[in-house]
């Protein structure tokens, strides 16, 4: 990979993204934002960005998809919530917060900053009880219509959600209509449980995905 596929993507300011995650105190937040703006400006001004070498992550010691600590804490939180009955159903904002901070495989930016994932493109159909199957539908918008990394991005989102959400959720990930030239092909692959399961046993792919998920909050 010599050139990024989309060298000059549109970037959304982090502070304008919707979130329910705890915000930092006001004073440090503005400082943080300022620093972040400078950083984004710097990144945008560079024509070529440092990136993950998709084809070269061979035989490295691959860390888990999400670090063990993070994973177990997420699971515990969910269990606690369910036991206490504080949060019965998962809503769109919660799903957005889980996936918005996933890194793009070629830019040092998150999927939310690149507007690949958007809150309005997440819809959830919660079943009346937890012993029934609920459904999450996410439409992703690739940055350019021939983005060959669309499948990888979708896979990252699926892995993140399958690790964090209870088993009762059936996750469907689709490319937003008209935003990709091989929409149907990508959609079919992303929603084939067997292909996803096999991909998650591929060390090379797993390495890339764990890098994408390393920025998750």
């Amino acid at each position, binding site marked *: 990979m010599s050139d990024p596929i989309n060298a000059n993507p549109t970037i959304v300011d982090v502070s304008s993204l919707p979130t329910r995650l705890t915000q930092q105190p006001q004073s440090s937040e503005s400082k943080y934002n300022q620093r972040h703006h400078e950083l984004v400006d710097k990144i945008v001004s560079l024509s070529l960005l440092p990136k993950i070498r998709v084809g070269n992550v061979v035989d490295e010691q691959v860390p888990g998809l999400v670090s063990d600590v993070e994973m177990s804490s997420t699971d515990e939180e969910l269990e606690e919530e369910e036991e206490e009955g504080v949060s019965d159903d998962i809503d769109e904002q919660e799903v957005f917060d889980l996936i918005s901070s996933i890194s793009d495989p070629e830019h040092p930016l998150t999927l939310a900053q690149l507007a690949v994932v958007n809150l309005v493109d997440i819809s959830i159909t919660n079943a009346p009880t937890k012993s*029934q*199957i609920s459904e999450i539908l996410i439409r992703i918008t690739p940055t350019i219509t021939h983005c060959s990394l669309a499948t990888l991005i979708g896979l990252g989102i699926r892995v993140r959600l399958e690790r964090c959400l*209870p*088993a009762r959720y*059936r996750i469907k990930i689709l490319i937003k209509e008209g935003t990709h030239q091989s929409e149907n092909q990508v959609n*079919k692959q992303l929603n*084939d449980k067997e*292909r996803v399961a*096999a991909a998650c*046993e591929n060390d090379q792919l797993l390495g890339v995905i764990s890098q994408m998920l390393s920025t998750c909050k």
Partner: protein
Amino acid sequence: MVNLLTSIKAHTDKAWSVSSHATLPLIATASSDKTSKIYKLSAKHKFPLIAKLEDTHQRSVRTVSFKPPVGGVDNPLANYLDLPALASGSFDSTISVWGIDEPDQDLDEDEILAHQAEILTSPSNEWNLMAIIEGHENEIKAVDWNYSGNLLASCSRDKTVWIWETDPETLEEFECISVLNDHQHDIKDVTWHPNQNLLASSSYDDTVRIYKQDLDDDDWSCVGILNGHEGTVWCSRFENKHNPQAIDSKVRLVSVSDDLTARIWSSTSEITERDGSEYIPSSIKQTNEMVWEQEAILPTAHKYAIYSVAWSSRTGKIVTVGSDSLIVIYKEIDGVWKIESTKQAAHGVSEINSVIWATLDDGSEVIVTAGDDGYINIWTQ
């Protein structure tokens, strides 16, 4: 009514596949935890674990298939002690073949024959790795033995179906006799006809393909394409000729898909079995092509992908399972398929990957399912 007889926590990860032995009360499982397990189908003995097959596959075990008795269920070898064996296929792109040694019993031959089932299903038999078969480029999705146990078919994401020939008594060598490249994508399932050498494969390319050995040489060819599904075909099964509804002149197959349908296909093309007596010289070579028709779409019941289907050879009933954790049993009444019963949440909120009809040691028929929750559930009707 579908009632849960027992629930076995067989695996620590997804249970992908379950297979039953044709004559012995045994089932085998395949799992993402890289192991296979063998259980005895005995309610009296609380479904004991017979063997755990491990430390062989590097990735998920996706598929498992018991070898039928040498010569087939209908024509088993007389006075021959047929030792159980099975093949398992993995995402690591290899197939492993497992079997037991002849049990070391201090009994005379008559007694061994009388207690054959008891002896061959004992947990004291050690299950050994007999062969590892390599050839596929990537993940193996299914393996299946033909009715007489001398051919093993396998399929993979590499878009090919391979047919392996072996001596069913020794299982020492597996020679690839054909590689079929007809599908355009990932192949999800491969299944033999229970009574003849007719093979079907189901694919991500939304079709099912049928294969037969050529009339004039040893090669195998695609002799039929089943077009109609509007999504990945996950599984297909032929009707056994012993089904009460089966008609001699007709071959039928059921297929299930991501498109939420289960379809029945049929062919009345003459079946030219190529054994010595019916051998047709190439000078009067006739076409091997089979014409297939879609006979029916079963009444809709599933809300998510249907992953597996089984056709009972005893009752002619069809059972389907899928991502919605639902079991559906269909019955054909006067040529019309009807839903006989359903079971919701058969594996809780987990997906069900595999279903079979099997026979317990007391002779009763059960349904066995394998789910993402790692459980093997056994159901009575």
